[in-house]
């Protein structure tokens, strides 16, 4: 009896079309879509929410690059759960069910002096436009790019183009230092070299470790929180994070917060809240 209405019939906006989706490292994809309205407004550090098909979740993804003239947005995503797997199945010419952005407050860009940017997993793409903007504002920009192994790193040339120095860290030592970027940064700081601001984008654990490294040095450290989100407009409260003892909503107050003020225990446990369901949702 219930008539199903297709979204296509209800809405007028053209659906967003994929221009290119390529796997740039195992399980890591770069995707460029045509979204002129979003591209016109995008700023470094903002994100979009993507629903790959009708059944998928609303998935927040950081904007990694854009071209306002061509009207395109590029993002990097990791294939981890059902929704990102669905996204990885789409190819150029395919339409994305829902694409909303730009969302979140942009990263603060001004002249700070020397800025270190730490990127891991999707965050390597995430720090790219931030590095570009900071460089343009006259900062000395050092990028720390990390992965388990050399073949999981990507956009090395792009990062090198927009920064004064790129420092690599791999767990197996196949490129750069053996270990993590936060180890490298600790050495760097202990050697007495000056950093005025640190920005970290990537997995929660990495951002936590970076914050702990910079804490004793008293360096302003900005992290890009990635809690579970639903609407992304400040309606549902799913994305709450505790900053300095106060409840904040990452989608409208963030996603960037001061790493030294975050209650990391809460964040890490909330990230794992749906482990069991995520396994089930991949079985169908």
């Amino acid at each position, binding site marked *: 009896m219930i*008539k199903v209405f297709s979204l296509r019939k209800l809405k007028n906006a053209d659906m967003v079309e994929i221009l290119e989706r390529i796997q740039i490292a195992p399980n890591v994809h770069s995707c460029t879509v045509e979204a002129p309205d*979003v591209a016109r407004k995008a700023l470094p550090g903002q994100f979009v929410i993507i629903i790959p098909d009708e059944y998928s*979740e609303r998935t927040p993804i950081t904007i990694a690059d854009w071209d306002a003239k061509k009207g395109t947005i590029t993002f990097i995503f990791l294939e981890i759960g059902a929704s990102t797997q669905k996204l990885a199945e789409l190819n150029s010419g395919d339409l994305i069910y829902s694409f909303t952005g*730009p969302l979140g407050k942009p990263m603060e860009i001004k002249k700070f002096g020397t800025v270190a940017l730490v990127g891991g997993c999707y965050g390597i793409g995430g720090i790219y436009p931030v590095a570009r903007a900071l460089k343009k504002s006259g900062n000395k920009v050092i990028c720390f790019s990390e992965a388990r192994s050399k073949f999981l790193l990507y956009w090395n040339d792009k990062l090198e183009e927009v920064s004064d120095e790129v420092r690599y860290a791999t767990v197996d030592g196949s490129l750069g230092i053996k270990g993590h970027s936060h180890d490298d940064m600790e050495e760097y700081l202990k050697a007495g070299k000056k950093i005025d601001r640190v920005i970290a984008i990537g997995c929660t654990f990495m951002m936590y470790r970076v914050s702990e490294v910079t804490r004793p040095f008293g360096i302003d450290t900005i992290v890009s929180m990635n809690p579970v989100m639903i609407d992304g*407009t400040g*309606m549902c409260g799913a994305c709450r994070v505790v900053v300095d003892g106060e409840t904040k909503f990452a989608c409208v107050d963030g996603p960037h917060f001061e790493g030294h003020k975050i209650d990391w225990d809460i964040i890490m*446990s909330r990230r794992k*809240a749906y482990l069991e369901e995520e396994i089930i949702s991949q079985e169908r």
Partner: protein
Amino acid sequence: MAKISPRKTPMREQPAKERIKNYDEVPFGYSHEEAIVEAQRCLQCKNPKCIDGCPVEIDIPGFIKFIAEKKFREGVNLLKEKNILPAICGRVCPQEDQCEIKCIVGIKNEPVAIGRLERFLADWERDEDEIEIPPKSKSTGKKVVIVGAGPAGITVAADLVRLGHKVDIFEALHQPGGVLVYGIPEFRLPKAIVFKEIDFLKEMGVRLFTDSVIGMVKSIDELLNEYDATFLGTGAGLPWFLEVPGENLNGIYSANEYLTRANLMKAYLFPRYKTPIVRGKRVATVGGGNVAMDCARTALRLGAEKSIIVYRRSRTEMPARDEEIHHAEEEGIIFKFLSNPAAFHGDKNRWVKEVECVQMKLGEPDESGRRRPVPIPDANFRIPIDVGIIAIGNSPNPLIPSTTPDIETGKWGNIITDPETGKTSKPGVFAGGDVATGAATVILAMGAGKIAARGIHDYLMNKT
């Protein structure tokens, strides 16, 4: 005339035992015969008090007379002159506090079932599948943009398109409808009804753009360059929390998150739909309004063995509609009155395990006239739970005020409007619904929409 029954014609509904196992609508609606019998209970008053109780002043005796005469088409048309969403209002209006409380029949007996009759006509038209498109005025050449496709925005769109203006709606989410779609559950308001209404708007020439967060993708000033006037119907936003220890444990949701997962994202059809929701066995919902009832009843349908409402006052003070409380009681929801959560306790993995409550008693009435709950010392108790839902309200959506500094807001972040016209402090910008009043009702949002539509029309026609 046949003898008039002292009671409303009952509406058949799914038995409580069965309905808690599905997500289908609870009441079935009237048959033609039942509707006619109920319509005959109306006295066709010369001075109908019922109309005073309806925020959009529907000609209630008028449409009821048409039902009694079996002229359903005429009835629908009359209804729609004042209310473009009768299938929705007939279902979710708090009639017992609005039109029906004023009904003369209600003095001695049960009032005429105005809401049910309204629903009947709207459903009749939908089943007929021949919705009449009302006539439109000649094009004025003016363009209006509406932000938010909730009941307020939908109403403004419908009124203005009929007056000959060009209307575009921008909606942040991937589906239109606002709370009607993401908040109120399917078993109370089937989504197909809402989409049909949107479809109808589109038939009339309104364009709808989803996935568009205004303030981010376009600023209000940019909209004002493209359009002659703007209406903001962005509804409620940031949920309030209790601000008690343990509230960020896993398994604790705001009502909005819980309901959005269940409704908009269809978590009740998980794993076909990929959005998960924790299916608790013992669920406590904190609050006493419609939203709390919706959460508690949703939890049951998602498999809870015990779904508990924790409310700090007593049953008489509960703001939820009688019908909702009644349905909740029938379904076996457990009510813990005079209980105020003081903390949530969790296990070592930070999953919620218990809610600790302070036992309250009723004291002197406060400003709202309701008796104020006061704590009883040393009478705390704990309820074991695996999901907690906080349903204590929201503040208005913050996105537009925060990205548009020249719109004046009140102390709760609500947009300040002129009650006669819906005008805000920014020229050409109007607002109404929950974003202006704070969380209210569907029909009040629609009433605000009607006022703003009139305000916008006057503004457009006087502006050269």
